[in-house]
């Protein structure tokens, strides 16, 4: 049912922490504890190393491709407390460096491209910064959510720009400005929803469902959905799906309790499949059946890092 398309041997010297394909699925970016970010061109099942980006002085935790309408941009965040935005101008180079965090930057996420070039960064120092590119003056502006999560923020995820449509909730007033919203999870076991109000970010609501550090939060793409969905995973080994009509009241259901700590979750583009991976080195895919129950459709990948060669 699911086939391996490519096995890419990355030249990293240490553990890989993140990998992502770009918008067109043509390039792969990876980052690792060896402090480097690598970009590969994928063509006809082969890969060529395009760039080996060095600039971080600590393990690089996460990378994120920006929407291509802004050019070829890649953001990376690291234990060295820096966020670097790389840009391809003939060749890959550092475009912007943000070093105002006081501790490891654990997560980054680009806002929906409709908002422009906006990056959210969650750090272990408990703050979230939102970096906005001002093309008129070619500068980056940063806003800070101070003490977002008291003992560290682990993850950030943006609310999609297309809000789900409730068949009755049709405020057709197209002029209503869609507000920027962020979901974040941290070491205080909370998921918080932030809203940009004027030029400040305020906490809209928080979801208290996990009993240990929240490791990943993912806001579902809302195409075709009638509700907002947020998936979250935690050190408490649970994956929880929270849903809401109004973004204030969230109803949570446990998708599953896993055998080990769950590290990351990812929604498919159509928001019907969820990929879950955790400390037990397993990846599983979950799909919602027509009754709204989540079923595991495959345990595809079990420790396949060990490829026979």
């Amino acid at each position, binding site marked *: 049912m*699911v086939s*391996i398309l490519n096995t890419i041997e990355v030249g990293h010297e240490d*553990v890989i922490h993140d990998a992502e394909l770009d918008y067109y699925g043509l390039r792969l970016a990876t980052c690792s504890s060896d402090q480097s970010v690598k970009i590969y061109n994928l063509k006809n099942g082969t890969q060529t190393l395009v760039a080996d980006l060095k600039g971080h002085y600590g393990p690089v935790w996460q990378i994120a491709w920006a929407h291509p309408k802004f050019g070829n941009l890649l953001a990376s965040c690291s234990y060295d407390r820096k966020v670097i935005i790389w840009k391809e101008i003939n060749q890959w180079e550092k475009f912007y460096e943000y070093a105002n965090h006081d*501790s490891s930057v654990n997560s980054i996420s680009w806002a929906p491209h409709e908002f422009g070039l906006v990056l959210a960064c969650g750090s272990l120092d408990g703050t979230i910064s939102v970096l906005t590119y001002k093309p008129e003056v070619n500068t980056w502006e940063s806003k800070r959510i*101070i*003490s977002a999560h008291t003992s*560290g923020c682990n993850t950030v995820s943006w609310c999609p720009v297309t809000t789900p449509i409730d068949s009755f909730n049709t405020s057709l007033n197209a002029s209503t400005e869609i507000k920027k919203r962020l979901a974040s999870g941290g070491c205080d076991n909370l998921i918080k929803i932030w809203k940009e109000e004027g030029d400040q970010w305020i906490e809209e609501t928080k979801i208290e469902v996990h009993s240990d550090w929240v490791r990943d939060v993912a806001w579902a793409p809302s195409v075709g959905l009638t509700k907002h969905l947020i998936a979250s995973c935690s050190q408490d080994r649970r994956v929880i799906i929270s849903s809401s009509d109004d973004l204030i009241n969230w109803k949570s259901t446990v998708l599953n309790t896993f055998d080990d700590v769950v590290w*990351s979750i990812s929604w498919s583009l159509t*928001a019907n499949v969820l990929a879950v991976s955790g400390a037990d080195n397993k990846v599983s895919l979950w799909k919602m059946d027509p009754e709204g129950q989540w079923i595991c459709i495959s345990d595809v990948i079990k420790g396949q890092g060990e490829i026979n060669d």
Partner: protein
Amino acid sequence: MELVNSWLLVTSWNWLIVGYWLCVRTGYLLVTGYKLELVTCWLLVCLGTGYFLVTGYDKNQIAIKNLNKPIDEIITFPRLNKYAPGVAAWNPNTYNKNICALASGVVVELLIWKNYLELCPGPILKSHTRVVTDINWHPLDPQLIVSTSLDTLTYIWDIRDYQKPVISLSSFAPASQVKWNKISRHILATVHNGDVKIWDKRKISSPVHYISAHLTNIHCMDWCVFKENQFSTASQDGTIKFFDISNPQTTECVINTEAPVWKACYTPFGRGMLVIIIPTPRKIENTLLLWNLSNNSVPLHTFVGHSEIVLDFQWRHFPQDGSDYQLITWSKDQTLRIWEIDKYLQELCGTGNSDLDIDCVDYISEMEKENPVVFGHKLPDEQINVSIYEKENDLKYTNGSTKNEKSEIQVKNLIRDINSDSASSSEINAFGKSSTITAIAPLNLQQEFSTNINIPNVQILKTDIIRRMCCTTAKCNGQIISLLINFPPSYPRNKGPIFRFAQGTTVSNAVRFKILEALRDTADFKVKNNQACLEACLRTLIVTMQKLTSNDAEKVNLFSDERLSTHGNSQDIYYVPARTCGAKFCFVDRLICFVKPLSQLQSSDKNICGLVSLSYRQTEALTRLYLQNKNGTLPPRTKYMIRRGLLKRMKNTRQNKRTVLIYDVSSLFFLNKELALKYKLIGSDINDICKYNAQIANSMGRRDLQQIWNLVLISAKNTNTSCSGSIDWNCHPLAKEMLQSIILFYISQTDLQTAATLCCVFQEYLFKRDSSNLKQKSNKTTVVNTPNPCTYREWLSEPSGSPYHTLNPIESSVESAWSFPTRKHVRSSSWSDFLEDIKLSNSIEHGEMMETNDMTLNYNEAFKYESNELLFDRVQKAYADILYRWQLLSVRALVMKSVKSANTEPHKGMEFKSECGQCKTSTFGKMCLMCKLPTMYCVICRLSVKGLASLCVRCNHGGHLSHMKKWYETETFCPVGCACQCSMNFVLTTS
């Protein structure tokens, strides 16, 4: 008479020094040991040829000890400065050798050792605005001392004029160390994280050299004793590098120690280097190594003996015999050792003869065999501490007089006590040690109190080690909290401190409760992990307080730049284990997976290990590596480093290749690129499109889709018979609803492709209003108020069902009555309640949607249609995005064409206007609006251009695209003959 030749200087608030001789002849070394208890922070400084120990955080006293007479009494002196001394240094010059400098807080104190009896406070050098990080006496000029501080300034003082510094050197980043060149009297160096700046005191405006030595922090920098321009840097990255300032670009040579280097100094004899390394976790190594600089592959000698990490060392030289050196080391095992470096070892360091070949392996093994047996044990039990404390009190009183027999006896007693204590506790200790190797060793309370906690708005007023309590105040948003923290005896092993609010606390009870809760949480968490919690608790205190009081005052200043200082922040110690396995959906139908290679599953992450099992000081140093870089950027990575690192790591990683797997998970989704490409979206006859698409679906093996296309074909056909060419579904009882429900079904199945394609094909008919009706009503404005969503829904849940049942049928025919105020009168009371909630702002015009005959149906329909329309639009947009990703741009354009609310961004690029030859007005069109003449003529055929045009931006000549294209296939110059090389500057435009 050299009675006071060697002294030991000790300052401690509750100091206790137990010196006992231990002379073990091990091979070539005479090892002498002292055991020092409760001396937590110390400084080893030299007075002439004697050695002194100064402890760090004494508030009241300094003590001096003669090293040559270990059983001799300790002399104590009071201190005035309340800050703990950070660095201490004796003047190394013969003249002024009795002056000791102590850096404490923002000042540098000078102390004068008078007549070998008395330590008198001298002048205070006071100009720095932040904590002084390092001081260094000039090695040749007895009057000069340099100090550097966190305020980024480096001052050179002449102690004869102590009012203000003689020279001030300013750099952007604070320096951690400052060192005078040992040979050249004008040169000095400052260390900034991984960089070294070389200054000449005759040229103070900027550094002479800026050397990016390491990527990581330099822990120790030392000038060479035999070569003027050479210096060494020892860094966290496990290397010691040697530089020559006459050629600063290149590294002279590198010693690779495989572990972070804490201290590396040139030996005063020969060409050696003595190194302290921070041991790698799980492996208790000998950390004190001696290298010969001519052989940088293996250490020459390893000093074996200390059971814990060596913290510092100093050299001592006996002038009676010019070649005899003693090494004094101080270790975390709280013993002081004196090692005699005999001539043989000195010779091995290459005294005079650097080509001497050395084999040191035997040396080490021999040392290990004869490892000294009884050396300092920690006192794990608190009761012992207490008893010592009492005795030490006695000791203090008697120490005032120099030659007191009584005190000697007491010291002896004390030694005996300690020895027996040590013996009894040695077993426990050995056991305890093995268990604490893997955990961060908790600090004892005194250590914790002594840690320089620097949190804005929080002040530690008083710490009392005896009563185990600490009093702090925090100020925030005009509120004050006084907090008393009591540490139970078992803290920090399993019990957290007790918090109490003291008098002067201004916050309300509710806030107090919340703060207490937060504090307990933090403390419990820390204690559970066997960590010290004072600093973390104070941070929690201020953070919670800020949060709570700002809510109180409604003065949320979330984005203020004032951040908590994280100097020495302990947050990094609780490290979030890194993701080593992950799966991510990317692109349209790809799943990226990476997992940790199985062979690595057992080993835990290196980064966390790096923080484990190190002393507090080292942990701090490690965290500082990442934390203190805030002010300075790290130096660029040198090529050498990369190559070296790569080679080293390649060996290790050969076996387990790291791979990223890309899965094609398209089977999980209903998205097919080929279908997207082949589907027909527009055409003159909708029947043909449906037929064609059905065929395509069939050829792709999607029989289900073929059926759907056939189904919609039939519904299209049925209606098509009545009106030729196009469909009029308004007459059809079913088709429109059916099609909408089909599309909704596909959306619910997340089959965006089918849904969007259907939307696109039937875009004209799906939401088409009855055109004939529209015409009839075109002169009447119909207003439908869209109800507030929630009221509307509440209202629907009423048993009465439809909201429209009370609607007077007559009303509908009276179109003029569809204005807002009149409506209320014709409704029942329940309806009017509902209307109260209606806001005019919500009203939207939907004139054409109103069917005169059946209001009820149309109301529902209107809502449904609106929501569906919006939904379908979004689905089409989402599908368009997918097509974009597939780079099917023309298909995407067709899909976007049918999107109604496509809020395409306004065009921002260049636009071309053409100017009328007659009236000179410019226009976008092909005709001048005023003269009605064509604005653009083709230079080839002399006719006006109406379609695609191409013109040169330089000479403005151009014409029909086809003509220009043909011309420039063979020519490069403009056809008019204006000598413009047009082929270079063409633009396309439409006229």
